[in-house]
């Protein structure tokens, strides 16, 4: 597969990536039902939806981890058929996950190029070329890192930059960011937004998955809303407000039938006051009574008390 220049020659109106009629079924569940999605060069498309709406499934289809049961994927106007994650990478699609696997004992450059290191004579890894190219990528994203540093010497935020550099090392025309700001501080989030803007300016198409409405309105050009495995809306961010997106996410009336219950709350059974944890939760107080059903709701990644 040839290397794709991120600046595509297609007219701006043509999507870089076009999914059409993608259906993916798991035993008992239709995870995606005839979904279409288009991503455009130099634009950020926000993918919005409740937990279980099909967001992660579509990402896995796009990155070659799942094979769709039916439907087509077009990259740059050519239909592609991904049988593996390597196929998707070769077609210029890359994903930055929260939990990208990195190796502490390897250098920054080795982490960036693991699996696709430049090879020299006799197929041996060309360490010099690898370090040079890794440093170029790090400099391009303004990462204050040296390519030869061992990864274990870096803090969390810098490891995140290595993960991003790794995603960019394949010269992707489509970059998927799955909840990229979930674990970052405010300052790191600002830096990530700048990076997103730089990727946009380079003409890459970005799929940005987030449930934070403020960031979606800040950085996205377009939106696509998924619900129950279907795309229920898509368009330009400039044409919608938060209320519109919330309505799309939750959809219309509930059609499931639930048992009729007589509220029958008795004495207090459980009381928790001021539960805290260094990283997971803080200031949790609740009471629970006999005969009561207490619901806990939160969007995934929102510190739902799992």
């Amino acid at each position: 597969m040839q290397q794709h220049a991120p600046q595509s020659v297609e007219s701006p109106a043509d999507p870089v990536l076009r999914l059409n009629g993608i259906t993916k079924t798991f035993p008992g569940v239709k995870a995606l039902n005839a979904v279409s999605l288009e991503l455009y060069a130099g634009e950020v498309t926000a993918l919005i939806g409740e937990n279980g709406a099909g967001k992660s499934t579509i990402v896995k289809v796009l990155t070659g981890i799942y094979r769709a049961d039916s439907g087509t994927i077009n990259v740059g106007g050519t239909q592609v058929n991904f049988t593996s994650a390597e196929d998707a990478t070769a077609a210029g699609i890359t994903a930055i996950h929260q939990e990208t696997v990195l190796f502490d004992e390897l250098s920054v450059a080795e982490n960036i190029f693991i699996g696709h290191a430049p090879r020299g004579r006799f197929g041996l890894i060309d360490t010099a070329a690898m370090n040079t190219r890794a440093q170029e990528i790090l400099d391009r994203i303004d990462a204050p890192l040296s390519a030869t540093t061992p990864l274990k010497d870096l803090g969390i935020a810098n490891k995140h930059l290595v993960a991003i550099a790794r995603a960019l090392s394949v010269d992707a025309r489509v970059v998927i960011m799955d909840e990229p700001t979930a674990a970052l501080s405010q300052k790191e989030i600002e830096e990530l937004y700048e990076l997103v803007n730089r990727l946009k300016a380079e003409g890459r198409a970005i799929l940005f998955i987030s449930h934070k409405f403020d960031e979606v309105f800040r950085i996205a050009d377009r939106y696509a809303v998924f619900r129950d495995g279907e795309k229920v809306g898509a368009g330009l961010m400039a044409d919608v407000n938060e209320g519109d997106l919330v309505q799309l996410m939750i959809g219309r009336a509930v059609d499931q039938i639930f048992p009729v219950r007589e509220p029958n709350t008795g004495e207090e059974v459980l009381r928790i006051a001021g539960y805290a944890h260094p990283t997971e939760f803080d200031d949790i107080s609740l009471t629970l009574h006999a005969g009561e059903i207490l619901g806990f709701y939160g969007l995934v990644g929102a510190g739902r008390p799992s």
Partner: protein
Amino acid sequence: MQAIFGITRPSAGTLHIGGDACTIRSPVDAIANGIVYVPEDRGKQGAVLGLPIYQNVTLPSLSQTSRSGFLRLANEFALARKYTERLELRAASLDQVMGNLSGGNQQKVVIAKWLATKPRVIILDEPTKGIDIGSKAAVHAFMAELAAEGLAIIMISSEIPEILGMSDRVIVMRDGLIAAELSRSELSPETLVRHAAGIGPKGHAAGIGPKGHEPGTGMQP
């Protein structure tokens, strides 16, 4: 929730059960105090897929089914039958290996297992995730029945219909904090999502995004 059941330890805070202060250091403490937890990931945390149904049900209740340190098969079957029948478990026999059951029926076995310990509080983490509609309805009906009998239930769910349909009260979480506590009369899909996503109430949301009067193209009603 795992903190209440003793899997994760909180760094601060107190817990009272029936008015008495308790420290839960492990799941064993939690079970002894009448708190049980039905996890979301049944395959990893809830069910022993290689064991038959009856052994899965009786696992935390072996003191009920054994005498002088020997397990009584008849007692095990009796206990397993009592609780799986209540849940309308669909299986060929209680000898059947867990791994061969559907997700919905596995969930019923895991719930049966914990009910057999006669808890006061049951924590259900995504009780109907990934199970078919029929099994969902059976689990919901059973939850309502348990509540009517006086069991206290905490139901963690990311499915709005389930939250709306089943809860007496709802706690909405955001970034590890309680964002809102809503009574049944205050519940609506929109309130839930707004609190969970950190958007103010209607009318206060203005000013963040550019506005248009018409929804974007491609929307369905």
